């Protein structure tokens, strides 16, 4: 919240000095997902006035994209959502002649992302991360014993373990297409299976641990982990690291840890794309190219603690981050990561319905 305030104050003071009215750019990005000075630097360099809005769920972004006329020039959907939105015709093809900084991107990661966007025609990797477990080191040790090794989904999916943690607060992401596959993976099933029985089994596991879950939310846990209001959260890597940083900042005695569980975790890419009806596609290309500047991307990674897809930026990223296996997984951990897949409408509905059953018992 404080960060947002500073940002909006910074934006406000800059906006008065900004240039002509049509020289505007509207960016819609995830909450807590950019360095404090990125926008200011872009405005200073280009003279384009930026309006920066945030969301905390792909679903909200998707509703805007599918409605059309969102007014945004750059948005940052996650890879599987991007794929569906491309299919619906929501994005324009990038004009790569306007994106000279593309050479900085890691070819392997871009090839991974091409699975969702063939030929990387519509989108560029902004950041990527994993969906793992954030936890309050002391609170967990207090309840499970100091020698309990936190390295597995057991922490949230094993009823014997999670029941011991329920009193200090266990939370799940409100993201059915991430939670149910994680449960399936824990059961030894293919996390990308669309088989109804497999999905039901995954949901059944979640239902079993449901009584020990405090809430299902995709951003609240950042503050709550940092404040010690909850102690275990299935969460997105960088968000958990932000909780860690906030706890350090507040010096409140809370120590937050993050693991990519040994059974594996979801790897996702958040991709910058330009809506087909963007009011200012030219400025949008400038913005995407600006973000791909090695120093700018490195600044963002240094601030939000998410891995980026920009090979040239890595030497500029803090050692503390590049050597953190929770952010840049080891080769061994990488072998267990899985990528999300786009589901057909029927599977989507089944997953959402199962999710409602998990959450409400109905």
């Amino acid at each position, binding site marked *: 919240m404080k960060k947002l305030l500073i940002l909006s104050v910074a934006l406000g003071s800059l906006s008065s000095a900004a240039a002509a009215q049509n020289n505007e750019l509207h960016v819609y990005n995830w909450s807590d997902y950019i360095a404090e000075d990125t926008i200011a630097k872009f405005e200073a360099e280009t003279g384009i006035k930026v309006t920066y809005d945030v969301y905390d769920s792909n679903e909200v972004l998707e509703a805007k994209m599918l*409605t059309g006329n969102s007014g945004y020039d750059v948005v940052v959907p996650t890879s599987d959502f991007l794929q569906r939105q491309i299919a619906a015709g929501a994005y324009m093809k990038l004009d790569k002649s306007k994106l000279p900084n593309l050479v900085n991107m890691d070819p392997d990661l871009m090839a991974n992302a091409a699975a969702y966007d063939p030929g990387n025609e519509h989108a560029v990797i902004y950041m990527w991360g994993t969906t793992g477990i954030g936890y309050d080191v002391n609170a967990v040790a207090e309840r499970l014993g100091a020698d309990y090794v936190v390295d597995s989904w057991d922490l949230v999916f094993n009823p014997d373990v999670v029941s011991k943690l329920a009193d200090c607060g266990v939370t799940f992401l409100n993201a059915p297409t991430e939670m149910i596959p994680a449960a399936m993976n824990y059961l030894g099933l293919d996390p990308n299976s669309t088989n109804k029985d497999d999905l039901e089994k995954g949901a059944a596991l979640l239902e079993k641990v449901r009584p020990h879950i405090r809430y299902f939310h995709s951003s609240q846990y950042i503050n709550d982990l940092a404040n010690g*209001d909850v102690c275990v959260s299935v969460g997105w890597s960088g968000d958990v690291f932000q909780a860690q940083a906030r706890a350090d900042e507040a010096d409140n005695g809370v120590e937050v840890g993050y693991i990519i569980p040994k059974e594996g975790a979801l790897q996702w890419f958040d991709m910058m794309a330009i809506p087909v009806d963007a009011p200012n596609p030219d400025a949008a290309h400038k913005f995407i190219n600006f973000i791909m500047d090695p120093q700018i991307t490195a600044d963002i990674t240094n601030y939000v603690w998410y891995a980026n897809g920009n090979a040239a930026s890595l030497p500029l990223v803090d050692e503390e981050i590049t050597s953190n296996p929770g952010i840049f997984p080891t080769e061994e951990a990488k072998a267990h990561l899985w990528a999300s897949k786009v589901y057909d409408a029927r599977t989507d509905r089944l997953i*959402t319905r199962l999710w409602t059953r998990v959450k409400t018992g109905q």
Partner: protein
Amino acid sequence: MSMQAHIAEPGRAGKWVRTVSGWFAGRGRTLVIAIPMLWLLLFFLVPFLVVGKISLSEAAIARPPYLPIWNFEDGILTLSLNLGNFQFLAEDSLYFNAYVQSLQIAFFSTILALLIGYPMAYVIARAPARLRNLLLMLVILPFWTSFLLRIYAWIGILKTNGVINNILLSLGIIHEPLVMMQTNFAVYVGIVYTYLPFMILPLYSTLVKLDESLFEAAADLGARPLTIFLSVTLPLSVPGIIAGSMLVFIPVVGEFVTPELLGGPDTLMIGRQLWTEFFANRDWPVASAVAIVMLIVLVLPVMLLQRTQPDEAGG
């Protein structure tokens, strides 16, 4: 439409209407009525028809994410109405349960707001005239802050490390923090808090108009205060009770923000279900069907109520 009538001063409004309609003579009357009608048409009927149209469509991966219900090709107009969305709602007990729980939460919230609001309205109405406006302003004052901020304030009060828990812990009354956030309790607190003024204001405007000589007469005839309240005050304030209850009950049924922010995952309300259909399932047709059914669920009882209250409804 009985509610507004009690809040506004009917006398003054009536005079104004008479003056205006005087200007326009006979035809003007229609014109004056036409303005609210046009308003309703534009901001209620048209959106309702759009939602109705979408509810008869079929979801698709497209922009917007549903298929058009009519198709004009080679001079042939094909109309395809998909009733499957409504059928789908009937087949899955989830929706029925969500409607029932929404009605239940709305019902108990209304009762709670009435129990808290009635004494407050009564005290304000009986207070010395110079104090009344001040007290009324105190009731309305919270509206000057954003509704969202007020709900966030409740999060700060109710959460595990929040104000209430910290006070109780430091006083030694409890040893483990109470879990209040993400429970139905928090939802009731948030809803009753938010909607209380909507209960107090119509109650106040009814109570303040009651003729004091009625109470004196009752007392002269030997009635005790409780009897006076039960057999004089309460029956005479029924219009205010009904108006206040409607103003609380109807919006609470469709509440989304309060249960989303304060409620637990098992607080199943139709507003949240609508969100899920619209955003998570990106199934606009089913979401629209949910909304249409909600409207019917709400409109029918209100119409029945108006019918049983012909005098009040006319007023």
